[in-house]
């Protein structure tokens, strides 16, 4: 007997992020405390609390193509201070992973100049490549 399974729709970005991060995005009430303490905010196009909101609103492309997810330095300041206990670094990492798992490299060793390769300490190269390359 043949059984045909029909999937009605693809998993939404919100579902993917919730699965990868283990976080409930609905907990966020948009107080903005995460953005208030973020050290990287100057190089972001969406501020951290907007990332949550955009995912909720289904603005998938805007989030996945934002500079913000690559500007996050995973310093855990936002999750330390969030009054609702939302772990935003995990959400940011999920978004990076969704991109990276499609073989997207934001940083590649080949593009670094010989001078940069000489100058940068191992710890910087390993951590950056872990976060920003497939």
């Amino acid at each position: 007997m043949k059984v045909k399974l029909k999937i009605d729709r693809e998993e939404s970005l919100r579902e993917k992020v919730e699965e990868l991060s283990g976080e409930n995005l609905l907990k966020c009430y948009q107080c903005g405390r995460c953005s208030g303490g973020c050290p990287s905010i100057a190089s972001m196009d969406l501020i951290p609390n907007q990332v949550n909101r955009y995912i909720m609103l289904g603005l998938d492309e805007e989030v996945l193509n934002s500079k913000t997810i690559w500007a996050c330095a995973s310093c855990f300041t936002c999750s330390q201070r969030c009054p609702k206990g939302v772990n935003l670094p995990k959400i940011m990492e999920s978004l990076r992973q969704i991109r990276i798992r499609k073989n997207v490299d934001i940083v590649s060793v080949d593009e670094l100049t010989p001078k940069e390769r000489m100058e940068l300490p191992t710890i910087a190269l390993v951590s950056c490549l872990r976060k920003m390359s497939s």
Partner: protein
Amino acid sequence: MEIPYYPGCTLKTTAKNFDDSAFAVYKKLGIELKELPRWNCCGTVYSLTSDDLMHHLAPIRNLIRVEEQGADQVVTLCSMCYNTLAQSNLRIQQNEEERDKLNEFMYKEKVKYDGKVKVLHGLTVLRDMVGYDKIKSQIKKPLDGLKVAAYYGCLLLRPKEVCIDDPESPTIMEDLIRTTGAEAVPFPYANECCCSYETVSNKDIVIERTRMITQSAQAYGADVIITSCPLCEFNLDNRQKEVRKKYPDHVDIPVLYYTQLLGKALGLPLKSLRFDLNYINPRELFK
């Protein structure tokens, strides 16, 4: 007393001044750092996604090396190594299913790891095992008059489950500074991130952060900044040359590892403190 020591990638390369000075300082204080055999890089960052177990293998393998030594604790000096090892260890302790899976991945290891090793940071060893009173009694050349700002950065303090002190108002490094006779200068950027690995992908933000952090420390009167992370040290020390290029009015401030400062106060020979490897020459400070 002997403790297994996990150096991590950078302490054996560009942060040799941290490694060498730590060996000398801890030895002087009665703690023998015994480098782990066959250690591997921990991956420097803790993987945050729920399905990414593979990246916890590297840190856990190092903890297996500790158990193979018959030891139940390991000390590391780098903040990023400490954070990665401690968070992976916590994950193994709290999640039995993942623990079994990880052990299955590592079926060739003789030890089945269950999270029993205690991961310590060099600063907590000084506070809890040596004790500040003992350090004070060993100070040969007090750093009277020197004003020191302690820069914690992010990963010694966050997330709070692995924090070595209070996550928002830590004092562990200030207390250490005071044992040397120097004055600890609190400043508002002490536990603000320097933007870490963005130094590779987005140097500009690190230049801005370095400027804010170093100028804030100076505004509060500091002569020198101390840290315990080779990446913070690189960003705050080396990147000041780029700050100076962009903002010609910038005044340099030396950045040291806490072991270098302590070593100086303990009267250890200069060659073991390796000030030659710090980008901004700190030797002027001690004239």
